[in-house]
């Protein structure tokens, strides 16, 4: 009986050690998962595909001046973004290799004349693309608005692009007021433009 008492006394520190070891393992694990969770939240999750915006929707922007750039349009004209000041501009980043961009191109081409009449300009910039391919696709889509290729990639980097299609809506003062990733519907275009034009 006395021996049994000794044993339970010996086991007590052993259990104590086990508890310490478990806590020592659990704390770093919990901390690791917490950091991973926060990091995932901050990065906006895992991208679904390289350089294609598969998550559609509006992204909040702090109204800021749109970075200026010059693009050579397929018509051979040197177009500077700031030259369009005074008009509402929809800056559309696209690529001939990007399926969602190809899908929405006919709708954009069809919508352009109506908005142009209201003082809106569309500007398409093809990124990470081959000029000949982009030009061929632009002709096929029948879009009447100016389009060009970001040959050196500076424009894409200036706008911090990680995927296309991506659209920036710029007001008459040259400030970015709305931003959408993924293709946009006719209804979204209408609501965004009516809001910007009435302001």
């Amino acid at each position, binding site marked *: 009986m006395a021996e049994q008492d000794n044993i339970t006394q010996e086991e007590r520190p052993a259990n104590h050690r086990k508890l310490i070891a478990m806590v020592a393992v659990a704390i770093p694990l919990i901390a690791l998962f917490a950091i991973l969770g926060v990091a995932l939240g901050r990065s906006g999750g895992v991208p679904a595909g390289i350089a294609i915006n598969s998550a559609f929707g509006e992204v909040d922007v702090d109204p800021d001046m749109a970075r200026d750039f010059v693009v050579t349009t397929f018509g051979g004209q040197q177009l500077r973004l700031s030259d369009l000041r005074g008009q509402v501009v929809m800056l559309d980043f696209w690529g001939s290799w990007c399926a969602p961009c190809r899908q929405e191109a006919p709708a954009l081409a069809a919508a352009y004349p109506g908005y142009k009449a209201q003082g809106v300009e569309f500007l398409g910039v093809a990124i990470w693309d081959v000029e000949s391919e982009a030009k061929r696709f632009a002709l096929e889509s029948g879009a009447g608005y100016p389009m060009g290729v970001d040959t050196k990639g500076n424009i894409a980097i200036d706008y*911090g692009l990680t995927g296309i299609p991506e659209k920036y809506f710029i007001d008459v003062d040259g400030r970015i007021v709305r931003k959408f990733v993924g293709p946009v519907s006719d209804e979204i275009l209408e609501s965004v433009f009516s809001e910007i034009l009435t302001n």
Partner: protein
Amino acid sequence: MFTRTRRYSETTFIFLIVSAIAALAACSTSNLPLPEDQLRAQALDKSLICPICPGETIDRSQVQLANQMQAIVREQVEDGRSDAQIRQFFVDRYGERVLASPPKEGFNLVMWIAPPVGITLALLVLFLVTKSMLRQGPTPALRPSNASSEHDVDLEAYLELVDKELGERDDPPPPAEKPDTEGTA
């Protein structure tokens, strides 16, 4: 014949080496004249993450965006901008996630402090546990004594009982058994 073959293989080997060096030189995106500028640009490449291939720095990534970022790094190095200014240029456009190592401020401090603190704590716990184990000597299971656990105590008691009974059986049989055997026969 043999020497001729050997000479050919030597020539081929040298040719291959020279071609490889030439190919490497041609592949290099660096067009900076000064070697220290080239080293700076290479170090900057290693400190910037390609935004569309997470986890890969722009010196490793093969995508077009990474190459274009490398070109911008070289342009800005040539223009005399500082490392901090060049890194800030990309942070302004892509956010802090473009940096391979997060800046030492705000929440990011956790990422810098957690690993050394974690390792120190783990070593401390390891030290304390080892020390207490050494102080207590070998674990009960390894002790020569049979009575090392509650289970063994029961076993010990049982074995004692068995020994006792066996000891009784080893004794000469009691005389009372005799008439019984006779009766059954």
